[in-house]
């Protein structure tokens, strides 16, 4: 195999990961096997790491595989597994196709900015919350962009086609559930997308080498990786095509050097170089000159120090983080409602990286990105929005797909008994009391009969048995009173276990007294 073939392999894997991950976020079939989600997302660094910290197990060592591969080869992750990386590559590729190919230049590392972002990310779990990770994790950013911008566009196109066909009495394309978008989340995602678009167009992979904390961490490891890309001075003609083709702007043709901490292993330089002047070589083979001993020793100490510090800090994520929640939601609601399987607001808020995969797959769209419901630090983490819809009793897709274990895997029988919130009833808002007519939409929708009807004058009035309530929000969604609901769910800070309504079994076969009762 020639070195120039590496680019083809890289392109194959990057497109594979990109398309599969993209499919998971964009599809609205809602019938995808959860195993596909687990497999495709297995190697995503931050989700895998957070998941591992949650449930240390041999099944969630995707991040370790990434670390090992980086130790061996450098940042191959950034040009294959990472969907945000491939998104930038596609932007760069199309801009090169559309306009005259731009020659890359060598850029100095933006050290201060790069390590500020990195340490901010490392430190944030200690002092605030997972917020900074939520905002910077490349997988979650990719998810936010797809879920908040591209999925709505796709749904819009799908639904337009389906309405068009309806007019021709063709019902073959079903419209899909759409409950509007959450503006703050869309604005943030647009900001993310345009930042990445602009940076990719102007400066190649600058985002990955300055903003992205995963890029910086893997870059630190790449500094000491077993193999590295370097210039072979004996074969190099000094033409500079490698530098022109470098997306990361990390090849310096004048010094004939490669900054391997910023190299994303796209292997473009191998293909560009006509003289085999760029090589993939062992880092610690004996070489005669360059770097004085002193310098390399200092560099080694600095790198190991930085590395151990970062690993240690990530380890501190293990500790429970107390999240201060400032409630800005109307006074009657004490807590927002987090999805079933998320154990407690604390667990959810400290483990959710806001990748919005659950938002994207939720068939009823009851899961919506929050704004300030969880407080500023829970910005964009999904919450149950019972104005939009209610949680389907038989569904647990969000738990199936969550890559960080913020929503824990749960079986359906268990899910049907997880109480994520408690029902509250405002009798004086209720139609039965105010208008004296029948309603009962709440009890009708209640899957556990935590809301049942008792005789009231000539009518039926809702009555609560809170022990049965799982907080699915069906009553709140169905309640037709405006502007304030008569029945609503107040979130549980810690999820509890509901009691199942048990009644004596009815006689299976009905015995008629007469042949027909009429």
């Amino acid at each position: 195999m020639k070195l120039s073939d590496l680019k083809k392999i890289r392109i194959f894997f990057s497109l594979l990961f990109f398309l599969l991950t993209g499919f998971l976020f964009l599809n609205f079939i809602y019938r995808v096997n959860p195993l596909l989600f687990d497999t495709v997302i297995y190697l995503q660094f931050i989700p895998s790491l957070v998941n591992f910290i949650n449930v240390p197990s041999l099944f969630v060592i995707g991040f370790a595989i990434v670390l090992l591969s980086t130790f061996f080869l450098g940042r191959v992750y950034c040009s294959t597994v990472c969907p945000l990386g491939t998104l930038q590559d596609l932007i760069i590729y199309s801009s090169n196709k559309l306009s005259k190919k731009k020659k890359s230049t060598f850029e100095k590392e933006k050290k201060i900015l790069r390590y500020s972002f990195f340490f901010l990310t490392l430190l944030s779990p200690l002092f605030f919350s997972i917020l900074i990770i939520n905002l910077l994790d490349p997988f979650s950013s990719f998810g936010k962009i797809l879920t908040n911008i591209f999925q709505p566009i796709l749904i819009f196109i799908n639904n337009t086609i389906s309405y068009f066909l309806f007019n021709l009495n063709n019902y073959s394309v079903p419209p899909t559930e759409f409950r509007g978008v959450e503006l703050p989340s869309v604005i943030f995602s647009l900001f993310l997308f345009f930042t990445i678009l602009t940076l990719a167009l102007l400066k190649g992979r600058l985002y990955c080498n300055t903003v992205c904390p995963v890029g910086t961490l893997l870059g630190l490891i790449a500094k000491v990786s077993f193999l590295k890309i370097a210039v072979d001075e004996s074969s190099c003609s000094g033409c500079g095509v490698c530098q022109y083709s470098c997306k990361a702007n990390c090849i310096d043709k004048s010094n004939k050097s490669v900054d391997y901490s910023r190299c994303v292993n796209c292997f473009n330089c191998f293909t560009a170089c006509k003289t085999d002047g760029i090589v993939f070589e062992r880092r610690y083979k004996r070489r005669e000159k360059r770097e004085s001993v002193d310098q390399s020793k200092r560099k080694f100490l600095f790198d190991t120090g930085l590395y151990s510090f970062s690993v240690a800090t990530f380890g501190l994520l293990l500790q429970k983080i107390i999240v201060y929640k400032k409630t800005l939601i109307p006074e009657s609601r004490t807590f927002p409602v987090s999805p079933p399987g998320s154990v407690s607001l604390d667990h959810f808020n400290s483990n959710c990286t806001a990748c919005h995969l659950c938002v994207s797959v939720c068939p009823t769209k009851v899961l919506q990105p929050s704004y300030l419901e969880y407080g500023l630090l829970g910005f964009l983490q999904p919450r149950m929005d019972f104005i939009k819809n209610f949680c389907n009793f038989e569904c647990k897709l969000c738990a199936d797909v969550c890559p960080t274990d913020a929503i824990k895997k749960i079986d359906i029988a268990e899910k049907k008994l997880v109480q994520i919130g408690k029902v509250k009833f405002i009798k004086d808002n209720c139609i039965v009391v105010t208008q004296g007519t029948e309603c009962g939409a709440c009890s009708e929708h209640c899957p556990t009969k935590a809301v049942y009807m008792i005789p009231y004058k000539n009518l039926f009035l809702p009555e609560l048995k809170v022990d049965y309530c799982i907080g699915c929000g069906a009553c709140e969604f169905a309640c037709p009173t405006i502007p304030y609901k008569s029945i609503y769910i107040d979130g549980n800070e810690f999820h509890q276990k509901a009691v199942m309504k048990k009644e004596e079994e009815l006689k299976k076969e009905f015995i008629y007294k007469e042949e027909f009762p009429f």
Partner: protein
Amino acid sequence: MDRRIFIKTLTGAGVVAYSSLLFPNVITSKKSKNFLASDFDLVAVRGGEPEIMFDRAIESLGGMQTFVKKNQKVLVKPNIAWDVVPEKAANTNPKLVARIIEHCLNAGAKDVYVFDHTCDNWQRAYRNSGIEKAVRDSGGKMVPGNDERLYQNYDIKSGKRLRTTKIHELVFDTDVFINVPILKHHSSTKLTIAMKNLMGIIYDRGYWHKNDLNQCIADFATLQKPLLNVVDCYRVLKRNGPRGVSLADVATYKALVISKDIVAADAASTRIFGLEAEDIPHIRIADQMKVGTKNLSNLKINRINLN
């Protein structure tokens, strides 16, 4: 073409065309069974499987061709409100739905459409109820019902509280409407049968709930939309309706009621449930408004016991 052959063909064709005008019955004689349609107001069957009971019931009404003519479009509206399995008896029995579609197609129907404006997520409800598969397998077409753009405004002239409401376009685009509810307990209207099932062809149910639910149900029934009401009383949800909590809430009745009179169908089914139509407010109101009759003693009923 030879001129002689041309003239011969033309004459031949003319004769055939003319004679078919003279003797229309010769050509359409197969349909003459229609005129033998029975004069039963209501058919009740018990003791069989859903599809067998329907076969017997529709046969005693003169067969499906009494209601469905060749090339007509048919709308079959079961209750598919909930994302639950058929055993929980919260949705119409899929076997019954499938058999009705088969009868319609055999009678020459061009298309048979099925939809419901579900309460739970519609795709999940269609799937889990077993109705989507039953419809596809029997040759019907499953249509979405949860999108407002599929609904058109319609005035209800004789409505007291409900004067206008949005109805699914298929109700207007089809020639025959067959209402296929399931008999169930209901938390606020006591029972949900044929009239209550029509809440699945309108869009804004919240409006009904806000504006005297029982009166709205009766008001809407004054439109007399269904040509036929087929009530599934095979499995009956006796309590915790309309969704049911567990299988313990279900009893097997193995019964079926068919009537063109929606109030009569409701009244007979109410009796099967063990209640009196007088005690179910929306049936009482609809009877008063002369939508139909709840008084079963005035009706010609065919009672078929398959036991």
